[in-house]
């Protein structure tokens, strides 16, 4: 314990110097502003802003980059809530109820609870990293291919529960998502699959492109289609900040979300992606009236946003303690560290303690900054909704195009958001939900790769999934969840949870 305190003191000593405080603030601010661009998630933001940290010393640069990361993450949620365009997988869930809240004139409340929930989750996760980072590392090593496969199966069951309408349609959408995720070069053999010989499909479909089209562009089309539904603009704005009742409804989801997010975030191999989905599923299951979900339930924003931020934070654990990046954002952080002459690895903690603990302390500082920056900005964002839609939608479209082009510099990406937008519009018209499809898309790739990896290592024996205790446990949970989800359907022939 003494060690823990002295380490934290060292960390805060580094993080609270005026320069580093300034850098954390600047990082959060710039990250938020860029991250708000539709489709520009944390990866693209960090990649774009990486060069501006070159002139700094390594600690300052990493503090700033971490700030950019949180800022972009938060900025992405803002876009999801205001215009229904999730910038990355984890804010898909936020868009579901967050945007509905915005339509009901409660955008400020949604943004406020997202900021406060995130701050709380970030604080807890920072403490977890500081106190338990090193021992928790072992958890990352327990998870092999078989465990990941089972985790992803569990994730797909969440996707079923996520759906609002018919369960059959939800499953169909999940499968379409899984199918879309198999487009591109086969990882094991290097063969092209379903690319129709088109060069730009060789690396598969980009998540941002799919999400922006299916959610964002489709939303614009739908709004233009029937103007009377476009209540965002005409609704009075209402309160800017959550009140007592909102907090009363939200504090439990925030606590649960923080826990789920923090645990899943530690897993490398993108376990953090599941956090918000898991939290949403849990809240919907626990809610007295699950039908409110998808129609602007504040729990559906509070829980997932907390899970999201807790996961974003704890996903630093494998990077800081092992030097192994658990996902694409962290891989970028590795690059940033090496550019600054620090090769991440198990030695960083002992060799550069000021950097290590300084960064951990700055995580908390960064979360605080985010709160400080974002609460006053809520008013500004919400006022944005008052802009007449005929001025707003060309601007959103333009920012979508700029955002998506800046990620890979590929014109085909821009065309694809148009295509997916049209598909998304058709789906809405026919009553299909896009969210399960996106989850299927994200999990499909991970699931397939880990399934094949596990089977290659076990030389084709399926027993590997049951022999390994963690994997068997996850599969059992998935089975129970599935039975629970299907039971009402079977019993009553009509599903209260899923049908509106």
């Amino acid at each position, binding site marked *: 314990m003494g060690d823990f305190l002295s380490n934290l003191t060292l960390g805060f000593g580094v993080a609270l110097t005026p320069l580093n405080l300034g850098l954390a603030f600047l990082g959060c601010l710039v990250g938020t502003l860029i991250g708000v661009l539709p489709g520009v998630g944390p990866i693209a933001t*960090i990649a774009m802003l990486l060069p501006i940290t070159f002139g700094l010393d390594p600690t300052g640069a990493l503090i700033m980059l971490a700030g950019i990361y949180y800022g972009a993450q938060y900025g992405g949620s803002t876009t999801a809530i205001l215009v229904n365009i999730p910038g990355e997988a984890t804010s898909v869930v936020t868009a579901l109820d967050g945007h509905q809240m915005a339509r009901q004139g409660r955008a400020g409340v949604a943004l406020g609870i997202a900021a406060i929930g995130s701050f709380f989750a970030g604080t807890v996760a920072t403490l977890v990293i500081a106190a338990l980072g090193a021992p928790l590392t072992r958890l990352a090593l327990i998870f092999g291919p078989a465990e990941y496969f089972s985790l992803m199966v569990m994730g797909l069951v969440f996707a079923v529960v996520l759906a609002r309408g018919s369960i059959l349609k939800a499953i169909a959408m999940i499968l379409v998502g899984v199918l879309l995720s198999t487009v591109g070069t086969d*990882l094991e053999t*290097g063969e092209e699959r379903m690319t129709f010989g088109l060069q730009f499909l060789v690396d598969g479909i980009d998540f941002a492109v799919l999400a922006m089209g299916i959610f964002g562009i489709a939303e614009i089309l739908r709004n233009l289609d029937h103007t009377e539904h476009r209540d965002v603009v005409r609704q009075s704005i209402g309160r800017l900040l959550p009140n007592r009742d909102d907090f009363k409804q939200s504090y439990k989801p925030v606590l649960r979300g923080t826990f789920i997010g923090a645990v899943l975030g530690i897993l490398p191999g993108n376990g953090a992606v599941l956090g918000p989905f898991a939290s949403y599923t849990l809240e919907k299951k626990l809610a007295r009236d699950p039908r409110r979900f998808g129609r602007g339930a504040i729990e559906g924003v509070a829980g997932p946003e907390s899970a999201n931020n807790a996961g974003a934070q704890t996903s630093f654990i494998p990077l800081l303690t092992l030097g192994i990046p658990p996902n694409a954002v962290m891989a970028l952080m590795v690059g940033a560290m090496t550019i600054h002459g620090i090769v991440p690895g198990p030695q960083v903690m002992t060799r550069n303690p000021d950097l290590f603990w300084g960064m951990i302390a700055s995580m908390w500082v960064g979360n605080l900054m985010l709160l400080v920056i974002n609460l006053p900005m809520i008013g500004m964002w919400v006022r944005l909704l008052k802009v007449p839609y005929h001025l707003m939608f060309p601007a959103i479209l333009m920012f979508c195009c700029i955002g998506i082009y800046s990620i*890979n510099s590929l014109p085909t990406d821009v065309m694809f958001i148009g295509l997916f937008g049209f598909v998304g519009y058709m789906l809405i018209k026919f009553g299909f939900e896009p969210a399960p499809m996106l989850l299927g898309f994200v999990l499909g790739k991970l699931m397939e790769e880990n399934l094949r990896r596990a089977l290659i290592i076990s030389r084709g024996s399926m027993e590997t999934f049951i022999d390994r205790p963690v994997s068997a446990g996850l599969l059992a949970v998935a089975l129970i969840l599935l039975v629970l989800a299907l039971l009402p359907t079977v019993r009553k022939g009509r599903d209260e949870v899923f049908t509106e």
Partner: protein
Amino acid sequence: MKKLALALAATLGLAATGAQAQNYPTRPVTMIVPFAAGGPTDVVARIVADHMSRTIGQQIVIENVAGAGGTTGIARGAQAQPDGYTIMMGHMGTHGAAPALYPNLKYDPAKDFAPIGLAAGTPILIVAKKDFPANDLKGFLDYMKTNGEKVNMAHAGVGSVSHSTGILFNSIIGAKPTMVAYRGTGPALNDLMANTVDYMTDQIVNVAPQIQGGNIKAFAIATPERSPALPNVPTTKEAGLPDYQVSAWNAVFAPKGTPPEIVKKLNDALVKALDDENTKKRLLDLGGVIPSAQERTPESLQKLVESEVARWTPVLQAAGAKAE
């Protein structure tokens, strides 16, 4: 925003294509890095470009165009205006292994470029899980002879450095392990540390921290000399496998037809960067190898590309690897 400004600059610049090479460069230069920001090639490019910018008096802006094992970005660079304002950072994969892996490759590594010079080499190491029954390369080779069937080799995906160098290694030692693909080095290393897979070959910058931390073991480094970062790891020659000499080199190229004066100017800037103490130190800290004076010329880079294509093509084709 920088990108936007550049695009604008490029459009305006087109009007003045006739501008003399003497005045070059009058506006920022784009360096295409065919991989995502933060990878080993990107890091080398940024370190070198930083110093080169100061020499040529214009900013060299890095543009990451990732995809298809780096061939998307290089194909785009090869088709750019040969005016010296678009250059690219190629590497062992894009200018050596690619013709064997991608039958529909849109460029010829030996014919479609004006080589500028070699930037840095990254040594390759043979590493294994901590619990592997052998402790040195000889023990490893013996073990492979009797237990070859049971062994799993990890790599970071078809077309990656760890994949190509791994296939070369296996063909030299005559091993046929079961290949397990990962999406990138990070997850592969994670499973190596968890003892899920048995061995792999990869660049020093990725594996050195884990070797120093005792999480995995290193059998040999495939360079003529030991690396100062890992003085205890023997070279492949010392360990009894002199044929396995391989490095993931990075080199600067311009599109074919770039005026010789501009090539010379860029090569001078590159050489100057490699002589700079600070730049050198940053590259060495990453475990990189700085090319010798003879290796830095455009001519020797051209020879390197030709010899690399000739070396990788038969090895990779024999292994049946392709990433169409």
